[in-house]
């Protein structure tokens, strides 16, 4: 199973060295302020901030491109609809297609927001191991049920996906083509089969966990203190987020 998870997050870069809880907080604030952007001037500012942070992170551009590609079709379809179907001041027209100022702004806004937000997410996840992020979320108040479920689901997804592939291969080797509507029943059995396996395995996993004291946790919270550098980075991100959101709120006001 090919995923975008980066398992090698070792580097001396400031983003790699940043304490995970303050990093998560800072990125969350900036992400939401980016989601607020509705004016073209702020969008330009957002793109500049994003480029600077990305440049500082030292992440290869191809990693970013990989993530950008995923929602590209949906974003381009929506963006193109905005571009050609919006009403407003006519800028150009060719046959049935007309481009308005509002359409152009709508297109630019949506694509720049999507690209900037994804860039931030890439920086966060390329510089922090997923497990560290889950632990940081737990320390920031994520309920234990959700943190544990995330961890177990992540771990056993690989095992169960592999088992499902094995079951399917075994069916194919016995002549299962699986390309007709009549094969839905077999697909249902395959899905049911993986449910049964996961259910049985979960009981064994629980026993193995119980032997090592699952449910007797001492509420382990790693005490990583925030260094001056962590604080400076976190506050800078917070100030940027505050700036973007307050400017946008000001611009939203009637009469501005």
């Amino acid at each position, binding site marked *: 199973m090919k995923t975008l998870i980066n398992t090698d997050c070792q580097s001396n870069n400031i983003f790699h060295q940043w304490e995970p809880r303050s990093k998560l907080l800072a990125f969350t604030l900036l992400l939401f302020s980016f989601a607020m952007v509705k004016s073209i001037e702020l969008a330009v500012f957002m793109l500049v901030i994003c480029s600077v942070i990305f440049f500082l992170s030292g992440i290869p551009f191809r990693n970013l491109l990989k993530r950008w590609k995923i929602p590209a079709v949906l974003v381009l379809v929506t963006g193109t609809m905005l571009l050609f179907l919006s009403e407003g001041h006519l800028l150009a027209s060719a046959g049935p297609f007309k481009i308005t100022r509002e359409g152009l702004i709508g297109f630019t806004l949506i694509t720049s927001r999507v690209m900037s937000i994804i860039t931030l997410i890439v920086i966060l996840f390329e510089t922090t191991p997923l497990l560290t992020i889950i632990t940081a979320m737990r320390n920031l108040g994520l309920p234990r049920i959700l943190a544990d479920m995330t961890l177990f689901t992540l771990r056993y997804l690989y095992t169960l996906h592999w088992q499902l592939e094995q079951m399917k291969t075994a069916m194919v080797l016995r002549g299962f083509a699986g390309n007709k509507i009549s094969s839905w029943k077999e697909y249902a059995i395959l899905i049911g089969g993986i449910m049964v396996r996961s259910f049985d395995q979960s009981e*064994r996993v629980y026993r193995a966990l119980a032997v090592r*004291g699952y449910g007797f946790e001492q509420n382990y919270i790693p005490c990583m203190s925030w260094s001056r550098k962590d604080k400076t980075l976190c506050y800078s991100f917070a100030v940027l987020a505050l700036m973007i959101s307050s400017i946008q709120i000001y611009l939203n006001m009637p009469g501005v």
Partner: protein
Amino acid sequence: MSDNEMLLRISNISFAYKQDRMILDNLSLNVSRGEKIGVLGPNGAGKTSLFLIIAGVEKPSSGEVYLNNKLILPGSFNTELGLVFQDSDDQVFNFSVFEDIAFGPRNMGLSEPEVARRVNEALEVLGIHHLKSRPPHQLSGGEKRLVAIAGGILAMQSQLAIYDEPTSNLDMKYRRKLINFINTYNQEAALIASHDLEFILEICSRVILLDQGQIAADGKPRDIMGNGNLMEKHSLEVPHSLRNI
């Protein structure tokens, strides 16, 4: 046998999952410090259930288990014993090897430096320090088994080590590594269930033969495993190396 020498005392244990069939039937067993006991028996003989009861995970329908003269209460966390499960995928649950091995020690309430020290020591003993930051799904079957042993037994510094089919799915290299480890590691006592009879022969000082929830034989490995009639009666075979004795 004095109480000091005795590590585990199982008295008159019975167990059934549902009412229909007894898995363990009034079973008693004493284990002394220093013993490595092989547990033989056909599939469904009750080996895994016995281990889960000793570990306090399953509740026996009657009988008691004492470890270090302390009654094992079902549902309790017993830090004196470690259990290595048949399928390492069931056991190695965390998303990094380090975190997985640290799970037991953290639940024991140890300080974080002590947890790290134990994890590193366990990794060193088994020679798997290079796997420290790897996610378990990327490990081979043999590597996963060693991680399970590191987390289940070494890092918890268990006095009683229980292994359920430790050589299943292992290649020769890891099987040999495991034999060397169990032979040299200084645990107080070990219980080892295995169908790999040559493995039992190399490691164990005593063997019990479990069938239909009862101990059918208890003695020296060569005496029991070399007894063709006894082995056959319980759906087992004399190991190859003992056939011409």
